[in-house]
């Protein structure tokens, strides 16, 4: 199985692998990544997965993600695993979690919200709803993660 995967998405020498992305969400992950166009990026979609049945995956050569990128990816792919690769070896493996307080990562979809008329950082908090929702600290409206736009 791992050999088949190896053929589908090549291993990288140094860089970051974002594994266990919910199938279909890889485009959103790519939108979040601050790429300058020179990086080698490999994308796998709808790969079989023990954990998720189907998953997407991204491998990026020679890139470490910023905290903002990691938190934003957690929002769109809360089951994702972040793997740092050094010399073809796994140096670090972290399961992503949506932060309780989400600062300046989301654009509030409410056009009447003050964050859309004044130059202020948006603040959202995770609610206890199932499926997970976020509530704007200012206008107090609640949204599904899929309804909000992630800031670049």
């Amino acid at each position, binding site marked *: 199985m791992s050999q088949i995967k190896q053929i589908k998405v090549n291993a990288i020498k140094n860089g970051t692998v974002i594994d266990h992305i919910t199938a279909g969400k890889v485009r959103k992950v790519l939108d979040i990544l601050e790429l300058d166009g020179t990086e080698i990026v490999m994308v796998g979609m709808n790969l079989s997965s023990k954990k998720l049945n189907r998953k997407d995956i991204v491998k990026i050569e020679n890139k470490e993600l910023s905290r903002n990128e990691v938190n934003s990816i957690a929002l769109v792919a809360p089951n994702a695993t972040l793997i740092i690769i050094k010399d073809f070896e796994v140096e670090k493996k972290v399961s992503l979690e949506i932060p309780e307080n989400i600062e300046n990562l989301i654009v509030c979809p*409410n056009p*009447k*919200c*003050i*964050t859309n*008329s*004044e*130059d*202020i950082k948006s603040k959202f908090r995770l609610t*206890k*709803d199932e499926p997970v929702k976020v509530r*704007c*600290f*200012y*206008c*107090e*409206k*609640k949204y599904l993660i899929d309804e909000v736009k992630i800031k670049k």
Partner: protein
Amino acid sequence: MKNLISMRDLSKEEILHLMDVTGKIEEGKIVPDMQRKLAALLFFEPSTRTMFSFDTAMKRMNGDTIIMSGTGQTSVKKGESFADTLQTIAQYSDIIIMRSPVEGAARYASEVVDIPVVNAGDGANQHPTQALLDLYSIVKTQGTLENLSIGLAGDLRFGRTVHSLAQAMALFNVKFKFISPSFLKMPQYIKDDLKSQKIEFEEYENIEDNIDDLDVLYVTRIQKERFADPEDYEKLKGSYILERPMLSNVKENLKVMHPLPRVDEIHTDVDNTEFAYYFPQAKNGVFTRQAIISILLGEV
């Protein structure tokens, strides 16, 4: 309590304390003194009634007010940032009381200035002082806030008053009846909140058949402007006008409340029944706002 921005911020204990202070102010057991205290009333959206109520509350306590109404006479129009306007006004006054069409404006103001901020309404979001005066009116007429049957009728979709009230009453194990045309129903996010707090509610489209078991009927206006077709409004409006004959089988303790202004949703023949409570409710607003200002300025 440093600011009053949203009912969501208040615990049950804080609400009950506020009710207690309001009652004592009304009875004259507490006489707050606001001499040399100045409240800045910033009303970026017109509201004669709420503004007058705050103005009266401050003046009844020997305090004073400075008033900004609309944005025409201010530097906001000259391009000054909202934060700068607020910080300047905070230099002149002891407390800022503000209404804005922008949702979250009062929350933001409370982050920008060092003095207390009271939200007197932010768009369709919150109007906590109205919710608190409504709670005071309920506790004063019913003797409790617990286990009541409350009907909210009219425009439940756009009315921030009913949103704040529903959230506040949810702390007190009430049963709700939401009575509105289908397209003006209580928003899903409020209903989700109530469900998560295990608060019972039922939804109806007709006022007449659903008020006999209520302790409080809270009526709000259905605005004609909400209807795309004026004919739909004419067809519907009769279902939401409360008239005296409808009150023949209601509970003795029923009180009919309304945030005012009323247009025609409560017929004037209800006014001289023992059920009408909307004008005393407005008076309660002054006592409630006196209590809020006094608590925030550390005077009680």
